[in-house]
């Protein structure tokens, strides 16, 4: 999306906290966000993998779909018409990853959909969508909702992520029942006296939680978590290098309206029932790609040597062929890998682990190998 340069950037409820704590702020999806704090991207990244990182992700969109009849079946059917994931069988207290698809199977956005535990919110689904896409997502949803299901945008909610090996200890000290939550479980709870809705998930490859709280209580929640000596504020710079090492897609880089979930290697998020029966936008393309294989795949890429190979770099099958066979969509330096890491799309025939390709960097071709993702074993709670 584009923004009017003259329009002021929006702020999250933690904006003043970031500035008071040494953050360097940058514009990101119409928000003024911390890209790094005093320690810098490298140390923030390594700290998240060693202790715990605190991330302000309040710029992301939070919303609910609500069935007027209070039935899960009603709201699930409405959302299944827009995404290829199984929502009908989503149990209370569980979250799933999915994608909004357009009529040609391109990805409009990726999202988390969850169902609160117990009976309190039966007939409601909670959504978390990307900041840059949220306005378009909400319009898309509103335009396709059947009568009897409404969209409620929760602009008064903030979202704080805590990620890393110390995350469970830090959260459980404030909310003991959080320790027993499995990966992608959700719960209501109270942290430092503040009512929260949290999921055991994240965007770093580490164990951790994403905690939704009323915007007016975001600073209090943040400070309760930050009071632990193992917790440190982490900016968007390290968030990007963490998710890249974890092999996770960034919307706008690795997935967009030109890529399908099949090409992007996200078929795991689409269960058999939906692969067979369809009933979502773009089913024709996805179905054909499952049958015949897509023309290209998203792959992990490990450059030889030390030079980072960044987004936009063109890939070739060998050192001389003038015809590109792919393109890097995310790339940089992986602090935990201690070397360059990248991902991108390559033609199906070359998308096999171990295939050596070449990246054009400053006028010469650098060897880059197709590797399995993630670059580091993920440490999600099982």
């Amino acid at each position, binding site marked *: 999306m584009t923004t009017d340069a003259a329009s002021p950037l929006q702020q999250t409820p933690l904006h003043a906290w970031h500035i008071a704590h040494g953050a360097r702020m940058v514009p990101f999806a119409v928000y003024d966000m911390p890209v790094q704090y005093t320690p*810098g*991207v*490298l140390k923030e990244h390594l700290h998240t993998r060693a202790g715990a990182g605190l991330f302000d992700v309040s710029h992301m969109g939070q919303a609910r779909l609500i069935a007027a009849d209070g039935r899960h079946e009603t709201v699930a059917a409405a959302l299944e018409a827009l995404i290829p994931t199984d929502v009908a069988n989503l149990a209370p207290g569980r979250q799933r990853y999915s994608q909004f698809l357009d009529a040609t199977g391109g990805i409009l956005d990726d999202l988390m959909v969850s169902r609160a535990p117990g009976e309190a919110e039966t007939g409601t689904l909670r959504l978390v969508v990307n900041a840059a896409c949220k306005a378009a997502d909400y319009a898309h949803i509103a335009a396709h909702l059947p009568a009897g299901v409404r969209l409620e945008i929760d602009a008064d909610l903030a979202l704080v992520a805590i990620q890393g090996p110390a995350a469970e200890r830090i959260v459980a000290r404030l909310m003991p029942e959080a320790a027993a939550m499995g990966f992608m479980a959700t719960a209501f709870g109270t942290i430092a006296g503040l009512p929260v809705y949290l999921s055991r998930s994240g965007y770093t490859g580490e164990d951790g939680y994403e905690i939704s709280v009323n915007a007016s209580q975001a600073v209090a929640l943040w400070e309760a978590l930050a009071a632990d000596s193992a917790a440190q504020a982490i900016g968007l710079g390290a968030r990007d*290098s963490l998710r890249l090492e974890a092999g996770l897609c960034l919307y706008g880089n690795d997935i967009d309206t030109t890529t399908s979930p099949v090409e992007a290697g996200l078929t795991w998020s689409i269960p058999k029932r939906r692969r067979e029966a369809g009933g979502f936008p773009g089913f024709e393309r996805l179905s054909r790609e499952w049958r015949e294989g897509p023309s290209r795949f998203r792959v992990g890429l490990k450059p030889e040597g030390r030079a980072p190979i960044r987004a936009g770099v063109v890939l070739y099958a060998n050192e001389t062929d003038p015809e590109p066979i792919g393109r890097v969509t995310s790339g*940089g330096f992986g602090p935990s890998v201690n070397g360059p890491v990248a991902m991108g799309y390559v033609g199906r025939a070359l998308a096999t682990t171990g295939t050596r390709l070449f990246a054009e960097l400053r006028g010469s071709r650098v060897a880059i190998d197709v590797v399995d993702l993630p670059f580091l074993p993920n440490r999600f709670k099982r």
Partner: protein
Amino acid sequence: MSRAYTEDHEWIDVAGSIATVGITDHAQAALGDLVFVDLPKLGSPLKKGDAAAVVESVKAASDVYSPLSGEVVEVNPAVADEPGLINQDPGGAGWIFKLKISDTGELAGLLDEAAYSALIA
């Protein structure tokens, strides 16, 4: 002559016909922890303003421009092995390359310490 600077945040020490080039403390702080340095090739001819080296942080790649015209006569292998040396000692052990100056007239176009300090103030 005393240390000179460019508006692109390089520093230059001139001894006879040889100029030693690095990036300023202000530049290294703005870039953050460096993780990769691409040095110029020995013997390569550079014109003033050419991209001579590349320094990369986790997030981004930045060019280091040649502050003067000349030929690359030495590069600092220590910063290629340990890019963090530029963060730790940008004006000393973190020097990047040395040039044999081909046009001493260009020296007059560089900034002095006071002018550079004013630029980054």
